[in-house]
């Protein structure tokens, strides 16, 4: 199967998952009523369900999945590490702390408990994720290796985790429940405006990646070779990590810290035989991420379990196969996966 053909299959899968999500749900609506509502006719309740609930949720799933997949690809390429993903830099942890401070800290201080809307939660996530990015920028020059940078992300995760625990211990039950719910991950939290935000960021990132494909390819050969082939290391570092960070941060703000999607998507693409040149991988990763997220959201609606549970049940075995060098994920454990 050529790259084009596999991308056609992915588009088809996305359409199928999208349509099945659009025309099914707990409301048990009549098919013709659903269609009429989509066309702007019929009763107001059905129109609300279709236009306010199902469509934005499915759009959010498709865009977020694509964004996380691309974020994961950029991180794995930049760190030359097959186990890198959007959460490694500590951006998700920072966002989680930001949300915890707004949702839990604010509530216990009494100033935000009455009006704990999505807006302040998103702001908290963006500020928290952004703070980690700025911190990273300030200390980056001191890191001598990629491993140090990965450890930085891990330690930020521990630190924010500790602070979140402190906030949780002092929070009231209602705020705690809202926070835990956010942490389980969901594509249903956003609305049209959040879809627009993520779509804009995703489009910009796709354009940047498409224009930087050759440099990213060179980067897989090591920084010395890449630099002597014309790659501006500083510029690539900032733009690649910035792009990956913004994508992960935005998705986390609305959907919660989503597990495994960013890490596993590029590997699924490689397992289908598409690897090497980024120009080849870009659209496959974007489409696979979108399709995976739509599929996972379908399972969430069908089985009634949280998104992160679904993704972890699928994602954890993928990573285990990856490091043990079994199955379709090749010899990653023994020789290091080829990016």
């Amino acid at each position, binding site marked *: 199967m050529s790259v084009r053909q596999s991308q056609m299959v992915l588009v088809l899968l996305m359409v199928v998952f999208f349509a099945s999500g659009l025309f099914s749900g707990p409301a048990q609506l009549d098919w013709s009523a659903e269609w009429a509502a989509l066309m702007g006719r019929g009763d107001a309740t059905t129109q609300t369900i279709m236009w306010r609930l199902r469509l934005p949720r499915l759009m959010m799933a498709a865009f977020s999945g694509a964004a996380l997949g691309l974020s994961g690809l950029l991180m794995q390429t930049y760190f*030359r590490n097959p186990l890198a993903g959007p959460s490694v830099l500590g951006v998700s942890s920072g966002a989680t702390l930001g949300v915890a401070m707004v949702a839990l800290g604010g509530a216990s201080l009494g100033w935000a408990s009455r009006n704990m809307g999505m807006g302040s939660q998103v702001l908290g996530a963006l500020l928290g994720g952004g703070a980690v990015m700025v911190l990273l920028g300030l200390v980056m020059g001191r890191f001598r290796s990629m491993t140090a940078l990965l450890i930085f992300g891990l330690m930020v995760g521990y630190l924010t985790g500790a602070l979140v625990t402190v906030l949780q211990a002092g929070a009231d039950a209602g705020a705690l429940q809202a926070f835990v719910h956010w942490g389980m991950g969901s594509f249903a939290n956003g609305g049209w405006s959040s879809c627009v935000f993520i779509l804009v960021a995703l489009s910009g990132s796709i354009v940047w990646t498409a224009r930087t494909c*050759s440099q990213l*390819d*060179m980067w*897989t*050969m*090591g920084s*010395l*070779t890449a*630099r*002597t*082939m*014309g*790659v*501006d*290391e500083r510029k690539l570092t900032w733009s690649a990590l910035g792009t990956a960070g913004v994508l992960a941060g935005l998705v986390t703000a609305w959907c919660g810290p989503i597990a495994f999607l960013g890490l596993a998507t590029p590997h699924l693409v*490689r397992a289908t035989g598409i*690897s*090497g*040149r980024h120009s080849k991988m870009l659209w496959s990763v974007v489409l696979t991420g979108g399709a995976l997220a739509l599929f996972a959201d379908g399972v969430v609606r069908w089985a009634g379990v949280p998104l992160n549970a679904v993704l972890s049940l699928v994602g954890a075995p993928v990573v285990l196969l990856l490091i043990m060098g079994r199955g379709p994920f090749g010899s990653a454990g023994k*020789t*290091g*996966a*080829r*990016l």
Partner: protein
Amino acid sequence: MSEAQLVMRDLELVYPTAGVGPLNLELSPGGNLVILGRNGAGKSTLLRSLAGLLTPRSGQVSLGGHEVGAMSPGRRAEHMAFVASTPPRGSALTVGDVVGLALEAGSKSAGPSDVAAALEMADIADWIDVQLDTLSDGMAQRVMMARAFNQAGSMVLLDEPTAFLDVVGRREVMHDLGKWCASGKSVVLATHDLEAVEQAGWANRWLVLRTPEQGGSLLLDEAFNAQKARSILTGEA
């Protein structure tokens, strides 16, 4: 070009701290330079300074009249390529991809036929769809050599390219470098492989990096002689 291509002016490197300079040298187009020195003598530091990747402690490196440190990475890549002692590992790029990227970096055309022609010339046409990572060290190093040759217009810097190769591999690399010199490309080679260089017969300029304590660096303008090089390096000269 009438002016010298690569010029080092009062160059003092950031490493070793004892200093091996000041180095003054002009390398005209098509000229070659073999850099010798014991482990830690500053060979890699010198090559990285010439490539514009390291800022020298003092002095200047210029290429075609432009200071290399001030050139953009893209401009530098058009003029100079770099071969490290180990080929990269972990990349999923194919041999064809690698050479294609090199042509692109040198801002030459990089269509499928250009890549095929470049691989044909390097005698590795059969490997076009093979992943670089699956090749042995020796084979992968040949690909990295072909990459460097196709990237840079005027100069290739090589940092112990034969360090991990067998006897035949070493001979082939040194032989290829001779062909590059003959085709007008400048070759700057850091190596410990004295015999292979002498055998290849193209080297006629060599620089031995030494600290002042060891007697200071030496520049010799004569056909390469392994025995003489050895006695200079061991301090028995």
